[in-house]
């Protein structure tokens, strides 16, 4: 089932990634049945150009909201400011959420590249993204 994002939600993700550049940006997408209802741009605790760690207190808060609202963690997104939109070895090593998609936004080229993956037991599988109005 493709992950459904609205154009406004996609714009919010891109805005966060561009605002944080050249540092990596990150966040969480919540919703139900593969349809995103909320975008949570979050703090990269690493403050790094080459790595990210979602700030743990923010992660706890957002996941608590997701449970309270009986939503699902649909995707974790982050940016690659200067490299392709494909999971790095570190992305795979730290992929602890096999049911969540991982969205990567590459800002290497002027037109951003956005791709979506599942990462399960070290295996990367690309997943479709559907952008709706």
């Amino acid at each position: 089932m493709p992950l459904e994002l609205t154009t406004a939600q996609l714009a919010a993700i891109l805005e966060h990634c561009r605002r944080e550049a050249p540092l990596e940006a990150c966040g969480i997408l919540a919703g139900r049945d593969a349809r995103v209802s909320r975008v949570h741009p979050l703090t990269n605790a690493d403050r790094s150009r080459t790595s990210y760690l979602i700030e743990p207190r923010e992660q706890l808060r957002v996941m608590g909201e997701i449970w309270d609202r009986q939503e699902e963690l649909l995707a974790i997104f982050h940016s690659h400011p200067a490299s392709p939109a494909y999971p790095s070895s570190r992305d795979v090593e730290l992929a602890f959420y096999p049911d969540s998609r991982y969205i990567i936004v590459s800002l290497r080229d002027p037109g951003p590249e956005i791709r979506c993956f599942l990462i399960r037991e070290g295996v990367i599988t690309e997943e479709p993204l559907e952008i709706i109005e």
Partner: protein
Amino acid sequence: MEIVLNGQRRQVSEDSNLSALLTQLAARPEMVTVELNGRILDRSEIADAPLKPGDQVKILHFMGGGR
């Protein structure tokens, strides 16, 4: 006894503690954030932290990566 783990009720043994719970969840302490009744615990506090009925526990693996 019953605790609430990540928003869901869960039965654990009477003498359970956080360390045992992490083991049950196959979670590596150095790769998770643990919150007990609203307070984030330092890693050094996890090993001996007892659990009591009604405790609200959140255990979340890190979300991270990078190029």
